[in-house]
């Protein structure tokens, strides 16, 4: 029988080398506003009501930050770049004397 007739599409979390989104469970109310705004549609609502969405497709994150911008509970989502993409900064130096 073909899959659509079975009416049981499944979605698996497809792991990747990065973790773009970290949720703070103490702040998140599971409203799914972030999941609904994501233009790459990387999240699905959590089957458990009130829990943060599941990042099913972390490798498809475009790191735009729309999810954080729209979150009604500041701090509930943190966007973090892959470690390799964290640009280095250093304390400023004085212009050396000639």
């Amino acid at each position, binding site marked *: 029988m073909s*899959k659509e007739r079975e009416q049981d599409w499944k979605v698996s979390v497809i792991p990747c080398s990065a973790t773009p989104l970290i949720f703070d469970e103490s702040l998140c109310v599971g409203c799914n506003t972030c999941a609904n*705004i*994501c*233009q790459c*549609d*990387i999240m699905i609502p959590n089957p458990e009501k009130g829990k943060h969405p599941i990042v099913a497709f972390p490798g498809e994150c475009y*790191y*735009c930050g729309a999810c954080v911008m729209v979150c009604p509970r500041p701090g509930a989502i943190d966007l973090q770049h892959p470690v390799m993409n964290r640009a280095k900064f*250093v304390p400023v130096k*004085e212009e050396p004397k000639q």
Partner: protein
Amino acid sequence: MNEYQWPYANEFGQTEIVESDVVVLGGGLAGCFAAIAAAERGQKVVLVEKGATKRSGSAGTGFDHWESACTNPCSRVTPKEIAEAYVDEQDHYSNGIAHYIECREGYDRLLDLERMGGKIRDTEDEFAGAEFRDEKTKLMFAYDYRNRFTLRVWGSTFKPALYNELKRLGVKIYDRTEATALLTVEENGKKRGAGAVGMNVHTGKLLVFRAKATMLTMSRPARIWLFDPDLTGLCEFRPMQSIGSGHAMGWRAGVEFTMMEKSVRAEFSAAGRSFPPYGAGNNHNTWYAATLVDARGVEIPYLDRDGNVLKTVSERYYPVKDQKFFLKGGVIDEPKYEYRGPETMPFDELMKRGYKLPFYADLSRMPDAERRVIWGMMVGEEGKTKIPILQNYTKRGFDPKKHALQCYGTGWQSASFLDQERQLFGAPGGIMHDWDLKTNIDGIYAAGDQLFASDCCGFACATGYYAGRKAAAYADTVSLPEADMEAVNAERKRLYAPLERTEGISWKELNMAISKAMQNYCGGVKCDPLLEEGLDLLKSYREEIVPQLYCENPHELMRTHEVLDILDVAEMILQACLLRKSGSKQLNFERSDYPEVDPARDRRFITLRREGDTVVEGEVPLDYFGDLETEYEKRNQNYIHAGGKSNE
């Protein structure tokens, strides 16, 4: 474990027919403005967007520069001057029509955005007294502080404002709906647009959008040469959604394209060597004209176009004596002398003089207003900077008064690529169009990045609105065409096939294969046998791999459809390359079998379109658009008399 039931309704096999006067495919800046223009003129408008319109598109989370706002009250240049300069700068491989529209109407669109609730001026007086600010209008300028035609804007406010305006005007928005095919009908032996087919990417429902006029506003192709199956969302500069489906469906329907042979050595891919955009030290675009220092802390000199060292930060923002204006921004790379502005000393010269790597952007050495406008306003309002850079780096402890941010590579690109790693960047090819931004097919219009030689956000907004009003005028003159249900059923079969298989090959495997093929057969230097081999290989993918594609749910089905579109676009690019039998500097096009560069006979737009399985070649003279001001005014008297407003 880690497997869930699909959380959305299953509407697989269901069909909804949606009728409208104008259907807009793509809800980025161009699409939103196209829909608004048509709705303001009383048309029933439907907008189809694969993501969520409120924050989708390349400028979903913002943009900081509005280029070529030549009609703003502080501007000292005319639309004609700047549009013609762009055409000249790109050796006439440029979209004069669209550039002129951008220069002439762009500022009107900014005023629209302000009316809708977007922020376009420094209303809080954060930068009162700054050199780049006009005290009366509170407008803020970038690049050329004398001529004042590029505006610094708060682009993060724009998409939500546009979204609310679409709602207010009664535009029916279909979010999470991918447009997949154009519908056409034959009338009196001539093809005419009849709408489009789409699929809801949550439920699998098929949608048939019947419309009098159809607008293509779906950005430009990506993931042709660059693909990373791990960090797919970071392969390219633009959003993962924007992969050229509009080009692909246009190609399948017989829409005519030009300049598709142009590609550039890649400039950006944060899945590999690049860093987050605007998140590494540099002095371009958002970061112009940041002070750069070397490893010792020695400042890197800025030079004027004649090589004279500029002594102050302020001088970096002015044309030299006897120069009317200079050009900077999106597509301006190494401008001609006439348009060249201040720039840091060339890299090779710095090495010769003993400057030490790595370099850093050091904003602490800039005047307070210049530092704050780069870090805090521009970095913050440019797309993908408010959270990923400004907030994220601040959390990591970055303070622009105390820290210098490292540069990688040279320029904004933050990486160096191989010649075969290519991208459609820097005013690439796209849809050929007339003065109405109409394609070769009646009733099908295009705007934004789907046009050939497209540019930036102002370009997208201005062309979107312009095309929207032309499409509205057309829709007033025609009846609603029938939908070709045979074509709809064929499309349904094509779209659903991968979801009906239980095993096979994934979209990522095919995307990877296409990208590798394009690097091998359509790299930096082209020749006929290589291009033909490339086409042959892609044909084998179509015949052998495509029938094996499979996926688990509608989300993966959407990604699979994207790769089918990438396959079509890759073929179009190979065909376009075959048609140009000489090299071209401006098109970044090099041939080993036709080494001649820009011979007079080939100084033309080569066009191509598909008719069944045949590729039809055409040509259009480089300046086909005529005198920009005259031709524009001939066709837009109503708009001019209404003062740029919607009730013309």
